């Protein structure tokens, strides 16, 4: 079960997911101790390579690495040669020469962490690559849900918002389905693509989605910076049609539903202020669980060994392929 990298949820096996969630439970118990540090990664180096702004994920990884006694280096993208036009590939060659053990990478280009993983012996952890995947977010979401539903099979999670641009929606929905959770998407037609997997219910109407009877409502952050391309007319209209308004919160409270959000929240857009004080709002739990999950991931991965090869479709088909044998 040893893995060098954590690049996506799609390739994780259920057993690996269960293992990480169980490990996370153990690590979380440490938080109640007066000494929160263990020597698991003593002498190891973790490099934070964030090409995009991040508060939660970055600090969460940093805290996790330090609690495992690793040495953490922040690669300062703003002051690096990248601003002089150095390509990512050249950066990786530099980092490989530094023999770092772990690279935590965030970038706006989907697939880029995988490209890095193939060029370095370090364990690469994808901390978000464009709209592709955000595996540790998915793991902490699952962990948070499992704390409330120890056997999550059959529960229903409704993910609301900008599915089109959301790596969180992709990773979290994939992982929850692997655990037997039913997933549905709700959002404007312009932000919930027709091409979502058939296993995910697709709603564009709030009432219809609530009639599906979800147990958890997972709100995605509306990326206001994308509003130069109008995916919906205004944030006010978004809040009215898809947001958790005061009226809707009352209904959610009556039904005892949990609310989750990967943060940072836009108050008055995806949710009203009162949601933050709702007793079944799990947003703070998600942040806290992010540390133990990331400790579990860092502890689990095994740096070194061969550079993995890109497994192209053709390579996979090379034996007995319909493509190659007419």
């Amino acid at each position, binding site marked *: 079960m040893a893995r060098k990298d954590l690049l996506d949820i799609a390739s994780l096996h259920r057993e690996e997911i269960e293992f990480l969630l169980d490990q996370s439970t153990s690590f979380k118990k440490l938080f109640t101790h007066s000494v929160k540090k263990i020597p698991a990664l003593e002498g190891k180096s973790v490099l934070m390579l964030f090409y995009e702004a991040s508060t939660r994920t970055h600090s969460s990884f940093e805290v996790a690495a330090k609690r495992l006694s690793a040495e953490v280096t922040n690669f300062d993208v703003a002051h690096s040669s990248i601003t002089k036009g150095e390509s*990512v590939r050249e950066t990786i060659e530099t980092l490989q020469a530094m023999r770092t053990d772990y690279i935590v990478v965030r970038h706006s*280009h989907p*697939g880029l962490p995988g490209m890095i993983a193939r060029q370095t012996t370090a364990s690469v952890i994808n901390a978000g690559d464009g709209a*592709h995947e955000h595996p540790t977010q998915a793991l902490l979401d699952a962990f948070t849900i499992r704390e409330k539903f120890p056997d999550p099979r059959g529960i229903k999670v409704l993910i609301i918002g900008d599915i*089109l641009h959301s790596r969180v929606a992709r990773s979290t929905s994939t992982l929850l389905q692997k655990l037997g959770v039913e997933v549905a998407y709700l959002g404007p037609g312009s932000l919930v693509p027709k091409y979502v997997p058939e296993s995910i219910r697709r709603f564009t109407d709030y009432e219809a989605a609530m009639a599906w009877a979800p147990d958890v409502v997972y709100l995605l952050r509306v990326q206001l910076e994308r509003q130069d391309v109008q995916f919906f007319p205004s944030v006010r209209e978004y809040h009215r049609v898809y947001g958790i308004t005061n009226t809707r919160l009352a209904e959610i409270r009556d039904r005892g539903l949990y609310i989750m959000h990967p943060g940072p929240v836009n108050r008055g857009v995806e949710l009203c202020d009162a949601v933050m004080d709702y007793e079944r709002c799990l947003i703070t739990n998600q942040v806290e669980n992010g540390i133990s999950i990331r400790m579990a991931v860092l502890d689990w991965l095994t740096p070194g060994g061969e550079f993995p090869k890109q*497994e*192209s*479709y053709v390579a996979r088909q090379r034996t007995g392929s319909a493509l190659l044998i007419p």
Partner: protein
Amino acid sequence: MLLLQNARIASENSPVLLESDVLIVEGKIQDIGSKLPIPEGARVIDARGRVLLPGMFDAHVHFRAPGFENKETITTGSEAAINGGITGVVMMPNTRPALDSATTVATVLENAKDRSRIPVYTSGCVTKNREGKELAEIEGMRGLGVKMLTDDGDTTNDPAVLLRAMQYATEFGMFFASHCEVPELAGPRALNEGVMSYRLGIKGSPACAEEIIIDRDIRLARAAGAHVHIQHVSSKLGMETIRWWKSRGDVKVTAEVAPHHLLFTDEHIGDYDTNYKMNPPLRTQADCDALLEGLIAGVFDLIATDHAPHTPFEKAQDFISAPNGITGLDTALVSLHHFFVAPGKFGWDLVVKRYSAEPRRLMSLPVPSIAVGQSADCVLFDTEAETTFTREFMKSKSQNTPFIDQTLKGRVDLVILGTEILLEREEL
């Protein structure tokens, strides 16, 4: 003097291969017949079991010179063509500087004379520097033999500009080749909008972005009385749109399809494999099937590779950063044989018609055939041998192709052009 014995002769007019001897004297086919006497001094090649085809002609290649010689030069590009059994090409004008004036076209044609062993023709831009704003100096380019006008790589986005260009250039007997894409819909990423674009988390380009411009440009051509040639069609509805316009018969429209759009789907991209990143993007199996049906039915007049070389460094970047396009000249003929001719999906007659005869007719060039009195312009193809597309085998300066290191059935053994043997495999 060369005598090919027992070659199986292919032609565009019949699926039947005629087994015959072919005698070539001083660059001309002097005699064809059974058991021809061996003239004194003639070199004899046993062509038994091999197919003799007219040389192929690719009406859509990017030779990158001037400006991007690190990717390809006229020399390496034309050698790749010869390696693949292709004896004539049309270069696209998206070089740096772009081929938008008599000066730049003359430079390229002059260079091609010295640096290529096959005829290299070039297209010219519709607009200056392919910017879609001001008309390029069209008549000056016509004076140098340019027939095809295109802003390939991009659509001529302003329909008024394109209509005026069509009205102007049609008077000179030129035609327009259209790269069809609504940029506002397509976005910058060469990936079909669909299941794969969702899975990979990349904004996809919907097929309608291509289909809208296919229809628009044919309508503009009809309004101007122009001939429009639709390039590298990738979608089923795009093909159906062309079929419908052709059935009306009131506009001159021709179209091409690239081998990769017949063979691959967006699923081949797998884990962000940039060797499958191209524009128009690979679409679905339904599109592939429809394009093949369109090719067999004659909706597509020609096959063209859109040979688009890029350096290994460029293609080794992540999918978003990597440039669009794959090479095709080294691989096209063998891949057409392996995937279509060998399994019986279509015959050699279609290959000859769509990849040799029609592209030359499009360019108003003489069409070679294996017939007495014709200039020797032919390819001997071994259907039983195999070709492994290693980096060493390929003559293109770049090897960004899905076929890298793959072995396909078929081999180009001999390429003859006039009095020259351009290529002769050791195995011959």
